């Protein structure tokens, strides 16, 4: 194999990255609009490295950074996405080109730009990550599953949200003291994540008080996963002392024609217990959450204690 160059991915590399993605994952593709959204439009920036040879991408390692609070302090954390190597670039003796690409990525960004990397890697990426890249296991991912409901709404009024403003950050800051680590859900992040994605805006819901201030918000999106038509509860941002707001939002999310409403919420959060009291069942998923920390006294086990990483933080439906 020709010698390769390891370097950051630049805007003009988008087509080559998308071509390599299609080569690496048979039957799947990453279109240019989705690539630009993920890597050029993220308000927190771009993190992507690739191994290039003769104009082609051989391997790719990337993450989507986000502003976060970690131990109550501002930090950057990043969701690892799109880690792959072309079939012909896999295996062989010595360190693989994929591992070299990942190491170059972490050498460039780990600790300097980002305090922590996390994700839900597929099996092969998990193996390589645990064996060679310092990944630790945070948890096996469970899902809360609620049947759809046509029942009339009770409790606070839920309204659609067409945009996010400074009130999103106010709301996040009310919720944040409970979180050991969480992506900051401000207007910039929420807007980019849920309103500007090429597949179209997600269904954003809110509850306001009499003064018009947000008391809670939820975000849903329809997706087909493993052949099932599901409504995904990507966000549920509600202070713990407002259960009636959360219940109203969840109820509104359940008013769907999908087979079920699915949420990923940390098992130690009060909402994990509350959704069960509202009828949710806990199901296993094939996913495991992994993390690599560049912060002292923060590791995967610590992260599992009080984090706030939900389905909205994952890339499970980013590209669907």
């Amino acid at each position, binding site marked *: 194999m020709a010698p390769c160059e390891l370097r950051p991915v630049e805007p003009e590399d988008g087509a080559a990255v998308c071509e390599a993605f299609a080569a690496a994952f048979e039957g799947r593709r990453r279109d240019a609009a989705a690539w630009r959204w993920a890597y050029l439009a993220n308000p927190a920036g771009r993190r992507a490295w690739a191994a290039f040879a003769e104009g082609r991408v051989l391997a790719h390692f990337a993450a989507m950074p986000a502003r976060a609070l970690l131990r109550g302090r501002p930090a950057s954390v990043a969701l690892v996405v799109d880690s792959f190597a072309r079939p012909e670039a896999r295996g062989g003796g010595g360190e693989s080109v994929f591992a070299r690409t990942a190491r170059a990525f972490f050498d460039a960004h780990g600790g300097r730009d980002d305090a922590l990397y996390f994700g839900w890697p597929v099996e092969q990426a998990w193996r390589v990550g645990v064996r060679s890249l310092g990944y630790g*296991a945070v948890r*096996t991912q*469970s899902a809360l599953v609620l049947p759809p409901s046509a029942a009339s709404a009770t409790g606070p009024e839920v309204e659609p949200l067409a945009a996010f403003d400074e009130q999103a950050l106010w709301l996040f800051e009310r919720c944040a003291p409970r979180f050991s680590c969480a992506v900051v859900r401000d207007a910039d992040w929420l807007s980019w994540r849920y309103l500007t994605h090429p597949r179209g805006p997600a269904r954003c819901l809110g509850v306001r008080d009499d003064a018009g201030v947000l008391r809670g918000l939820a975000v849903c999106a329809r997706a087909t996963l493993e052949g099932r038509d599901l409504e995904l509860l990507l966000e549920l941002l509600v202070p713990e002392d407002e259960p009636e707001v959360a219940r109203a939002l969840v109820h509104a999310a359940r008013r769907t024609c999908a087979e079920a409403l699915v949420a990923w919420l940390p098992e130690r959060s009060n909402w994990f217990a509350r959704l*069960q009291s509202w009828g949710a069942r*806990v199901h*296993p998923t094939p996913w495991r959450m992994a993390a690599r920390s560049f912060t002292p006294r923060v590791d995967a086990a610590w992260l*599992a204690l009080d984090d706030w990483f939900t389905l909205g933080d994952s890339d499970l439906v980013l590209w669907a």
Partner: protein
Amino acid sequence: MTTPSPTRDQRGTLRLRPLERGDEEGLLAAWRRAFAPLDPAAAERSLADWRWRFEANPDGAQVLLALDGEGRVVAQFAASGAAFELDGERLRAGQALDSFVDPAWRGLGRSGAFVRTGLAFAEHFGGEGLGRSVFLWGLPAPAALRIGSARLGYGFVRSVLHLVGEPVALRLPASGACGALDVREVAAFDGSHDAFFAGEARSRGAIAVRDARRLTWRYRERPDAHYAGAEARAHGRLAGWAVLARGRFAEREATLVVDVLAEREGGALAALTAWAAERARADGLPLVALVPDTSREFLALQDMGMRVEPTPYTLVARSWRRALDVSDLRARLWITLGDTDLC
């Protein structure tokens, strides 16, 4: 030798070997010193309990000790053996437990006593063949989890969730309303359990053998332990069984469903859970159960009104069989409280 080792400066004189007759008192004294700061109650383990777990276990046990220059135990890596059934094959496995290092010998480096003992254990007891374990699993404490993951080949299997329910809130068949099922408390396990296990094992993945011999050792012969057992029979045919104990789990005093095995159809699980709930109600305690989150029982117990909560435990494993990957155990390793040393 029951007195503590004064220093780890003699690291070079560390001797690693399997347990030998006569080691028990010194081992137990060292174990108590190591665990007393963490859990005074656990550190009260008696020699009788130790002998039950490590000498009387019908599936054996594996113990590797580290001794200082004067023959004092300073570290242990151990496993309580269990025969497992997997895809129709019986193989030897076990729970890694009771691993410790004397506080004076603690250190995280490669040459630390704990790591050296763990590596020696793997060399002596890991693998195929007589006296060896094809795989080990465990619920390590956080410090042991970190060291084991970094140095001893621990692989992450899954986070451990459990189920909790208030007896009065559970949706269960009323007493006497279990159709053809007859639920009775039993004091002994008999040959019908052997056949029942053989039938159930096929659908359970990797499950420790639950025959009469094993169940008798586990639930009838343990010193100073009190377990209540019940069977559900349909026209005399064993359809399921369960074992309960009062105890503490995940920071909660509860009536624990220590073990349960029931047929898929016929309502045996519901009938046995109803029995368990009645006992819990009489105890004035919540009911707690631990079954794999990938099992049908996990959903069935939720349908009965139990809710899922996390535990502080992480299930890890190490396999010495290439075809049995730790990732495979995620969905296949059948573990209940009865398989552990937690109750």
